[in-house]
């Protein structure tokens, strides 16, 4: 036997070591990692009651501001008239008609009172504008559904979620191994009961190679006669 007997062995060793090294270079820590997701419904809660109160307050502010504007206009006209009279009587007094001095003093006092009232109206009008700006901001929050939900309670298994911050949208997860999921949702003093019925099916996300579950034919019902509206992406509850 000659040295060439060793050479195929060398070849096999090189090949084997190469495979081992390649495998060692690419650890598979994420293989088979579970998908952390579940089917569900995106829900937005709009406080119609508060919205109504805010709208009333905004309308009241607008009416008040209009009244102030009318009053301010009237005061301005009155001050202008007093200015004319004061100018006329000042000339007379300076010409020697001293009998008008008392009247001139009364007109001057009246003008000062009216001017003070006008300044007060300006301040009140600014306050009303600030108040309306704030109310409009609240109105925007309410219409976008930004509200803090206290708890979302899943009736079927007794699990619940609590929230610390206000959100515009809440994800209501649907039970993956059932065709019906019921929630009790508490927002301040308001309690809403909602039930979803649906069908589930598995599918493969070919891009990510993930097996997912989707919920279809979702039906919503509530024993509390809650108003709701649904579009393609969300469910809007009005309370």
């Amino acid at each position: 036997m000659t040295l060439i007997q060793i050479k195929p062995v060398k070849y096999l060793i090189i090949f084997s070591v190469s495979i081992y090294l390649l495998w060692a270079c690419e650890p598979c820590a994420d293989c088979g990692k579970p998908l952390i997701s579940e089917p569900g419904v995106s829900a937005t809660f709009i406080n119609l009651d508060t919205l109504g109160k805010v709208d009333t307050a905004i309308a009241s502010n607008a009416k008040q501001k209009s009244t102030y504007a009318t009053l301010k206009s009237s005061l301005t006209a009155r001050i202008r008239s007093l200015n004319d009279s004061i100018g006329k009587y000042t000339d007379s007094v300076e010409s020697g008609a001293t009998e008008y001095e008392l009247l001139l003093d009364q007109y001057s006092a009246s003008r000062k009172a009216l001017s003070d009232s006008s300044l007060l109206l300006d301040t009140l009008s600014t306050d009303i504008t600030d108040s309306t700006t704030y109310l409009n901001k609240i109105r925007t929050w309410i219409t976008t559904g930004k509200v803090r939900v206290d708890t979302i309670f899943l009736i079927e298994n007794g699990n619940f979620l609590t929230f610390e911050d206000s959100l515009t949208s809440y994800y209501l997860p649907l039970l993956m191994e059932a065709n019906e999921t019921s929630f009790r949702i508490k927002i301040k003093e308001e309690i809403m009961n909602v039930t979803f019925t649906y069908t589930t099916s598995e599918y493969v996300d070919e891009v990510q190679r993930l097996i997912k579950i989707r919920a279809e034919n979702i039906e919503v019902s509530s024993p509390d006669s809650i108003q709701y509206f649904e579009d393609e992406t969300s469910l809007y509850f009005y309370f």
Partner: protein
Amino acid sequence: MKLACIFIFSFISLASAAQFQDSTRVDSLAAVSVIPDTVSTRFRLAPMLSFDYGKGISTLAGIDKRYEGAAYLLINNKFELVGEYGTAKLAPENAFSNGNYQADGTYYRIGAGIYSQLSPKSKIGLGLRYAEAAFSDQGYIEIESSSGLQDGYYRPFGNPDLQANWWEVVLTSESKFAFQKSKPEAKINHLISLGFQFRMRFLIGYDRQSPIDVFAIPGYGNTLNDQHSAVNLFLKFHPF
């Protein structure tokens, strides 16, 4: 990527092996005039057996569990009839990101080919195979609850009695090992050859499943593509 790297290293290794062979080139060339030319004008049949040692190595390495062998009938050292048989237990890591998948089964390929002698020791061949696999698959999927409001979803799945078939075009390159350089005419120098096969596979069909379809077919590969390339490393025995 990993498989591609393995193929690249395989070729590098083959190149190394070729270099080892080249180191014996002087002796081999000297042997040309001594080793009888196997090409004969008379009708001659030569049965042969081969073993896919690439799969054997990956099995020993614990990467997967695959074995493959083949029987050949060489006619006049020019044409061949081939029957290949293999078993595979595949566990592709890229099947599902949130689950596990295994395919287990056997396959066979039958076909024919033609060879061209490059030198007294080396030859290349072109062949065609028809292949069928009988296998089963199984696995599980796992989905955790992101909200934590419910338990995770876990479901095992499996499909017994699956079948698939495909065509293969095979390009073969092989060289004989001269075990005894001092005696080029020795029978042992014609006993074993080493080579590789480059294969293009064209899927005909398989038993599709829903919603979780078959991902891997023993002997073929994954079902993401209807065409696959593959390389086999083989050790061929010429007992007669």
